[in-house]
């Protein structure tokens, strides 16, 4: 107990940060793919699919990620399914991210004006072609800020994987803090590392937005 921060602590934190990156990648790739399916299911022409997808989204969005992780990791073995911590974390993050991204993307797809759908329909484009060539390119522009906003939250939320035994960045910080009792120092270091992971993504979003934002509306009233 006690002592001061040394190189071992820092390498322990770095190791934790690697896990944070790994889990984030899993969450974003798995959740992104599944989220796309959820978004499409939410606007499916089949009523049953829409209702099912809506139920999924409501349920998952209402449950803390921690609980989802816990129930996947500890709740499945009694049912005869053994899961490794990595599998449990991957599955939970995918389930969770898919619900949110799916919902965000649905909103963006629906915000493309109805006339655009009609014009595409009038040209005899199939549903897939309408989606891919007319609606999605326009929806992506609207979707960039909320998607990035959520991605950044997910990077931080991977810390909940400590419940299934991962020692990622936040948990590594907690363990060191409990050895050193230096909360300010350690939590500021942890915050800086998170910032270093998240900020480039936020930046990227700005660049993308600026690129796509040709002819963007802007108030030009000069009076106050």
């Amino acid at each position, binding site marked *: *107990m*006690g*002592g001061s921060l*040394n190189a*071992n*602590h820092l*390498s*322990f934190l770095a190791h934790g940060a690697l896990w944070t990156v790994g889990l984030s990648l899993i969450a974003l790739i798995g959740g992104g793919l599944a989220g796309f399916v959820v978004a499409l299911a939410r606007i499916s022409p089949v009523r049953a699919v829409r209702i099912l997808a809506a139920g999924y989204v409501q349920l998952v969005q209402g449950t803390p990620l921690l609980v989802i992780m*816990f129930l996947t990791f*500890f709740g499945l*073995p*009694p049912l005869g399914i053994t899961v490794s911590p990595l599998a449990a974390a991957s599955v939970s993050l995918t389930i969770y991210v898919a619900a949110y991204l799916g919902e965000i993307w649905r909103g963006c797809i629906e915000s493309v004006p109805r006339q655009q759908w009609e014009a595409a329909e009038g040209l005899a484009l199939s549903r897939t072609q309408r989606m891919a060539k007319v609606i999605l390119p326009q929806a992506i522009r609207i979707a960039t800020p909320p998607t990035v906003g959520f991605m950044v939250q997910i990077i931080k939320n991977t810390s909940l994987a*400590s*419940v*299934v*035994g*991962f*020692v990622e960045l936040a*948990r590594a910080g*907690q*363990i*060191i*803090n*409990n*050895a050193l*009792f230096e*909360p300010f120092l350690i939590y500021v270091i942890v915050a800086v590392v998170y910032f270093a992971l998240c900020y480039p993504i936020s930046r990227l979003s700005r660049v993308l937005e600026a690129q796509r934002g040709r002819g963007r509306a802007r108030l030009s009233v000069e009076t106050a």
Partner: protein
Amino acid sequence: DQYDDIMKAKKIRISTDMAIPPSGMMDSSMKPTGSDVETAQLLAKDWGLEIEWVQTTGATRIPNLQTNKADVVISTLSVTPERAKVIDFTKAYASLQSVVGCLKSAQVKGWDDLKDKTIAVSRGTTQDTELSAMKDRALKLSRYDDDATMVTAAVSGQADCIATSATIVNQIGVKNPNRVFEPKVPIRNFDLAIGVRQGEPKLKEKLNEWITANLKNGKLNEIYKKFHGTELPAEMRS
């Protein structure tokens, strides 16, 4: 049978929370250390086994055991009848001596002097349960998620007193020389035991034998003294 399985595998999976000093923590080279850690290492050595640490947080110690992700839990489990309905406990291998510690300068002699003081505890620990049960004493508790945060509360002045082990009370003065704490009011001692999944009588029996032997030969007392600064109660050592 769990015991046979362990012996066959030559490996024991032990679940210990590494973020609850001085029982489980990391040393300066980020190796597990602490009284529970050394107890586990002693057990493994005596039984000729290799240890596989199962990373756990406070909340997942028991589920790790129940879902067979760990063979035993050695992680400051204190025994209560409520908890004994869920897992089995061995006999006590150590005891938790806890106190209410306050500023050295504070005029605290007994429970009555704690009335309008904010007492920090670690949420869900036996100290928490014990003080929460003292409804008639009208204590002002504030609960933190772990010991480090509780200590921070005391160091920063968010709490006037803390209820924990004497070892941790002494930490505060080290962190902030302006706020030196000392033990003021003793709370009852709690037995700490090893947690075993229910329905494993052989494993429990073997562990009990091992604990009895090592209490007698003083090895468990030695570990305890090394990390907690005091000896185990005399009646345990005999």
